[in-house]
């Protein structure tokens, strides 16, 4: 009795981070009967109060400006706006980071249960076979093939629910899809223009339910997914994975818990996770038999690098020196255009789901004419948007004047603007990585990250191709580009702005040049797994979330099995 009273509980697994990867680990491990502790740096999510999707702007006094009109002075607390589902920011008070001179990088952090899955775009694309084994030799191969990952993509899609149609395109591998969503008027025009230019444009693959699934209601097409979804029709790890795991009784959630260090014993196994309990600003420990780190790629690297010991002077599991290195973000470029054919469009409800109902998968794989490697996909926006503060600021500034002429023009052109976004593959380079800053610590006393980041000619040329392609599409639609076009290289997104950080603890066969094996298990530390996008060897032009779920699922099943066998 005395022993039980004195010893602190030991969990089978501690999962750090509650996003797509952490949520998947929590689900799979508790489904397998294991006792799991989940650390989340932010607060608990409460959809009924935190999700504002059905509010009209005038139902809030400040209509989204913020209680101190922050919007008008560039000081919004949430980067994605007041009405958006709880999201974080690139700048968080008390949690700074530094950027090396000559580099530009913005580091986004979401701090709430469910992480970025509460506000993500739901775009769910499988990596292609050639993404895993690239044919151009510019990056290392992955230690898995598409054939090996396909069943895990099946599981991920099957659980999340992803819309789409089977198209037989190598650059957009088919999955198990829910019925697609019908295109909007501007998307029909876009599709027609793409057809004229021999560019494929297919129904988008989105993690939004067009049929009920696993007790989650089908979407009711209010078009506000980015503001939250109380019916859980748009996928979040919080609602689909973590809440059910909490109900299982095998999950203990620690919110307001900032992971500080992975504690290892002399044999090099993780024995506990120490964390800062934010409310009391005290450091606590949770003992465990294994740990799954899913704090988001850079936060995960930071935790490993900050877990130093005589055995691991460069950070736990970092004998290769690769932790933090080969950081990538998606190549981003966008423009908006006015399409006269859509002016005075008969009013109707164009909401659907938030986000595109169609998209363009990469269409030039293997093309010898292009002057850059790999490729990108194209996203499209438009339609009659819910008016918000700022919806017409740019138009007013462009049109100038006032009065009936202004009012008429705004009404006539409402719904006539489209936006095109290119999202492409960055080739990882030696100049893009994160490391521990030698001086600064955050308000929890944890050494912060210092970022180095640079695009290369590969990415600049890719963006030039996007510009040319978008100009052709807009012209074919009879449209006119509405955003000023900066010269490349300014046109490319700032690193970190697309919020797809990857690659900071890559998997590979060789422990000298990689951190993890194919199961996202650390070469050096058998009871340490990683379940976000840190393990990703490359970052293809396919949004990472679906692959995070697939890899996290595979890793968690493997971990559970290894624990059952007594190997971990």
């Amino acid at each position, binding site marked *: 009795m005395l022993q039980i009273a004195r010893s602190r509980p030991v969990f089978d697994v501690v999962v750090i981070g509650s996003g797509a990867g952490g949520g998947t680990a929590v689900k799979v491990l508790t489904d397998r009967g294991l006792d799991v502790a989940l650390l989340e740096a932010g607060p608990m999510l409460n959809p009924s109060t935190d999700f504002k999707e059905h509010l009209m702007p005038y*139902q809030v006094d400040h*209509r989204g400006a913020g209680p101190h009109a922050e919007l008008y002075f560039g000081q919004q607390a949430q980067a994605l706006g007041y009405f958006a589902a709880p999201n974080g920011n690139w700048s968080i008070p008390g949690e700074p980071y530094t950027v090396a001179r000559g580099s530009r990088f913005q580091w986004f952090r979401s701090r709430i249960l469910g992480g970025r899955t509460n506000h993500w775009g739901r775009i769910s694309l499988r990596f292609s076979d050639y993404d895993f084994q690239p044919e151009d030799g510019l990056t290392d191969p992955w230690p898995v093939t598409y054939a090996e990952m396909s069943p895990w993509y099946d599981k991920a899609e099957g659980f999340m629910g992803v819309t789409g149609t089977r198209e037989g395109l190598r650059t957009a591998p088919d999955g198990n899809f829910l019925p697609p969503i019908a295109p909007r008027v501007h998307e029909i025009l876009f599709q027609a223009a793409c057809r004229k230019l021999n560019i494929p444009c297919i129904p988008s693959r989105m993690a939004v339910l067009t049929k009920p699934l696993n007790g989650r209601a089908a979407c*009711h097409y209010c078009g506000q997914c980015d503001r939250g979804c109380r019916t859980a029709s748009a996928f979040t790890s919080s609602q689909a994975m973590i809440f059910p795991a909490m109900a299982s009784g095998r999950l203990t959630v620690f919110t307001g818990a900032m992971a500080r260090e992975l504690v290892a014993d002399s044999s090099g196994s993780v024995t506990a996770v120490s964390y800062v309990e934010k409310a009391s600003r005290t450091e606590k420990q949770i003992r465990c038999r294994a740990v799954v780190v899913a704090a988001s790629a850079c936060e995960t690297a930071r935790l490993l690098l900050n877990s130093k010991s005589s055995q691991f002077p460069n950070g736990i599991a970092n004998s290769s020196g690769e932790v933090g290195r080969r950081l990538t973000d998606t190549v981003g470029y966008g423009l908006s255009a006015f399409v006269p054919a859509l002016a005075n469009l008969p009013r109707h409800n164009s909401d659907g789901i938030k986000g595109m*109902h169609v998209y363009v998968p990469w269409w030039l794989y293997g093309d010898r004419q292009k002057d850059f490697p790999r490729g990108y996909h194209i996203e499209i926006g438009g339609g009659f948007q819910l008016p*918000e503060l700022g919806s017409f600021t740019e138009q007013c500034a462009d049109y100038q004047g006032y009065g009936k002429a202004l009012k008429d023009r705004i009404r006539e052109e409402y719904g006539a603007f489209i936006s095109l976004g290119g999202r492409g593959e960055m080739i990882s380079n030696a100049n893009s990585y994160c490391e521990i800053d030698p001086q600064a610590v955050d308000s929890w006393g944890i050494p912060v990250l210092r970022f180095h980041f640079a695009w290369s000619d590969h990415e600049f040329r890719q963006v030039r191709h996007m510009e040319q392609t978008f100009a052709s599409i807009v012209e074919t639609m009879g449209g006119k580009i509405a955003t000023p076009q900066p010269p490349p290289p300014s046109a490319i997104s700032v690193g970190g702005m697309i919020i797809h950080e990857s690659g900071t603890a890559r998997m590979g066969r060789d422990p000298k040049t990689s951190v993890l094996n194919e199961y996202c298990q650390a070469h050096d530390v058998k009871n340490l797994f990683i379940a976000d996008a840190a393990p990703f060897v490359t970052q293809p032009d396919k949004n990472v979330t679906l692959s995070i779920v697939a890899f996290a699922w595979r890793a968690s099943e493997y971990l559970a099995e290894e624990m059952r066998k007594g190997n971990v």
Partner: protein
Amino acid sequence: MRRVGATLSLSVMGVPVLPGQEAQQVHQAVAEDYAAQLGPYSPLALTAHEFATLGALADRIIPADGRSPGALEAGAARFIDFLCAARAELRDIITGGLAWLNHEMRRRYEGKDFLNATLEQQTEMLDLIAFDKNHSPELNPGIRFFQWARRLVADAYYTSPIGIQELGYVGNSAMPEFQVPREAVEFARKRTP
């Protein structure tokens, strides 16, 4: 408001579905409710005279026309006043701008401020400061103020029930499935080169 709130609120499961075509009626009802509720108002941050001037200015920026009410009826001055009460920096921009405007009006129009000037005189003044191309040391404060005023009035108007109805936004409601009307597709197709 209560009526609209009940219609638009949805429970987690067993969602009462609001057919798309009722959405327009709901939005219209809200607009009418809202206009009816705009009874007497005591400004929070602005003086009565500033508030009245702002209202008149807002109504010149987005006026009533045959289709819909203007920014005054939509409560634009009230919303801007609310923001001014929330942030001194913004209040200073507005009060400073209104004071500049009235000073300028009195100078040009024999002591008449914006509220007491004729429509033509107001137009003459606004035609100067509503366009960046008219920049000069003399007009720049007015131009900068008008940029703020136009932005805030548009924000206030188009996020109000009246402004939303003027645009014809009928979304943020529940639909059992998503389809766009044939008519809208054909309209756009015919106009595509």
